[in-house]
C-alpha cells in the first residue's frame, strides 16, 4: 500500500472560448517519507496538479488516495506552501503561525508550544512572534510560512515553488533548512519547481512533466549517494553534473517536440 496514490488524473479548464486540457493521464505513487519533485516548463499544469492532490481543486477525472482514503476526506493531513509567503500583513507572526490550528479548532497550550518551538528551530527567536510580517526579511517570512504550514502537523507537504521569490543565497540556505526539517519529522513532500538544480538537490525522485497537456514524460531516480546529502552538498557533489545533464537533455528534447 502506497502512502499517496494518484490515479488517472485528467483535468480540463473550461472557458467561454475554449476547453483546455491541462493534465492528462497522470498516475504515480509516493511512499511515506519520500521527497518528489515535479519539474517542467511553465504552463505544464504543475500547480494544477498540486491543487488537485491537496483537494483544493476537483479533477475532471481520476482519483487521489492518501493512505487509501480519498484526499477530500482527509482534512489537515496536507500542508501547502505557496510561491510567496502570503503571511497576513495585519496579523502578528504568532497569529499567523497559529492560524491553521485555530481554523481546525486544535489550538491549545500543547499545540501552541509546539508551533512556537518550531519557530525557534527555524532560527527565529528574540521576540519575532510579536512582530508584524513587514518587519521581517523575505527569507525570514518564508521560514515563518513554513512554520505555519508545519504547525498543523500535516503528513504530506505541497511546496509550490516556495523558493522562487527569494534571492539566490537565501534560497540555498532555505533549501537546506526545509530539507533538514522534513527529514527530521519524516514528512512526505511534493515540490513543484522549474529549477533543475533545486529538484535534484532536494528530491529522491524527479518527475519530468511535458506540456499541453501535462503528462508525466519521464521519472528520474536520484542516485543514492546524493539522497542523503544536504541540498547544498548535492550541488557540489561530483555525481551532480551527470544527473543535471541527463535532465537537461530530456527537457531540450521536450522543447523540440513542441516546436
Amino acid at each position: 500500500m502506497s502512502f499517496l496514490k494518484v490515479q488517472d488524473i485528467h483535468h480540463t479548464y473550461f472557458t467561454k472560448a475554449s476547453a483546455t486540457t491541462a493534465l492528462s493521464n497522470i498516475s504515480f505513487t509516493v511512499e511515506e517519507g519520500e521527497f518528489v519533485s515535479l519539474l517542467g516548463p511553465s504552463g505544464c499544469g504543475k500547480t494544477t496538479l498540486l491543487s488537485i492532490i491537496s483537494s483544493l481543486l476537483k479533477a475532471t477525472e481520476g482519483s487521489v488516495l492518501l493512505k487509501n482514503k480519498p484526499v477530500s476526506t482527509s482534512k489537515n493531513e496536507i500542508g501547502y506552501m505557496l510561491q510567496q509567503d502570503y503571511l497576513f500583513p495585519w496579523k502578528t507572526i504568532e497569529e499567523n503561525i497559529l492560524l491553521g490550528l485555530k481554523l481546525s479548532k486544535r489550538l491549545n497550550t500543547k499545540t501552541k508550544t509546539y508551533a512556537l518551538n518550531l519557530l525557534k528551530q527555524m532560527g527565529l527567536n528574540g521576540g519575532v512572534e510579536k512582530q508584524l510580517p513587514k518587519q521581517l526579511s523575505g527569507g525570514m517570512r518564508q521560514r515563518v510560512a513554513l512554520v505555519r504550514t508545519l504547525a498543523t502537523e500535516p503528513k504530506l507537504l505541497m511546496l509550490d515553488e516556495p523558493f522562487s521569490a527569494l534571492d539566490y543565497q537565501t534560497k540555498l540556505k532555505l533549501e537546506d533548512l526545509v530539507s533538514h526539517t522534513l527529514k527530521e519529522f519524516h514528512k512526505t513532500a511534493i515540490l513543484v519547481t522549474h529549477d533543475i538544480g533545486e529538484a535534484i538537490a532536494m528530491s529522491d525522485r524527479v518527475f519530468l512533466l511535458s506540456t499541453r497537456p501535462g503528462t508525466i514524460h519521464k521519472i528520474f531516480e536520484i542516485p543514492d549517494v546524493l539522497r542523503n546529502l544536504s541540498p547544498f552538498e548535492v550541488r557540489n557533489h561530483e555525481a551532480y553534473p551527470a544527473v543535471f545533464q541527463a535532465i537537461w537533455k530530456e527537457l531540450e528534447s521536450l522543447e523540440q517536440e513542441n516546436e
Partner: protein
Amino acid sequence: MNKKMSNVQLLHRNYLKSLKIEKRWVMLYQIIIFLIFFGSWELFAQKQWIDPLIFSSPSKILELLITKIQDGSLLTNLGVTLTETVFGFILGTLLGTLLAAILWWSPMISKVLDPYLVILNAMPKVALGPVLIVAMGPGYPSIIAMGAIISVIITTIVVYTSFKEVDPNYLKVLQTFGATRYECFKEAILPASFPTIISTLKVNVGLSWVGVIVGEFLVSSKGLGYMIIYGFQVFNFTLVFLSLLVIAVFATIMYQLVDLLEKKLIKE
C-alpha cells in the same frame, strides 16, 4: 570618524530645520488667504460694493452667532443636525458593507442585482426625500434615512469591488487549512478591505451632510438645514451664511475624526 559623524548630524539638523521653515511658510500663506477673504468680504460689504442684503458681512454673521448662541437656538439646531448626520453616516456605511458582504457571499445574488445597483447608484437619492418623509413621518427617522440612503449604494459598490480584489492566494492559504467561507471572510476578506472601508467613510461624511441638510429643507422644522431654508424665506441671508459656516466647521471636524480613526486602525 567623530568629525564625520558630527557633520552628518549637522546636515540632518539643517534638513529638519528647512522642513520646519517650509511648514511655517505654508501656514503663513494659509492665514493670509483666510484674512484676505474675510477682510475683503467685510470691506466690500461696508462700502456697499456688494449687496449687503444678499452677501451679508462677517461682522453681522459674528453678531448673529453670539445672539443665537445666547438664546440657545443654534446649539439645539446644531445638535439635531449633528445627531442625524452621525447616525445617517454610520448606518449608511454599515448597511453598505453588509450588502457588499452579501454580494460577495453569493455570486448568484451579485449577478442578479448588478443592473439594479447601477440604476440605484445613478439615481439622485435625495429625490426619494418626499416619499421617505411621508412614509416615516417628518422627524429623526426619515432624515437619518436620507443621510444613510445617499451613501449606502456607493459604499456597497466600492466595498464589494475591494472584497473581490483581495489576493486569492490568501484564500488559498485559508482553504488549505479547511476554512469555511465565513472564516475566509472574517480572516482575509474583511481585514484586507479595512483601508477601503475607512476611505469610503471619508466620502460618506460629506454625502451624509448633503442628505441630512436636504432632508431638513424638506421637513423644515429644526436643524441647520431648517435655519438655511428659513433664512432664505425671510430673506435673512446672514442666517444662511451663519448656518453654512457652522456646517463647514463641523463637517471638517467629522472628517478629521475619521482621518484620526484611519491612522489608529491602519498601523503603518
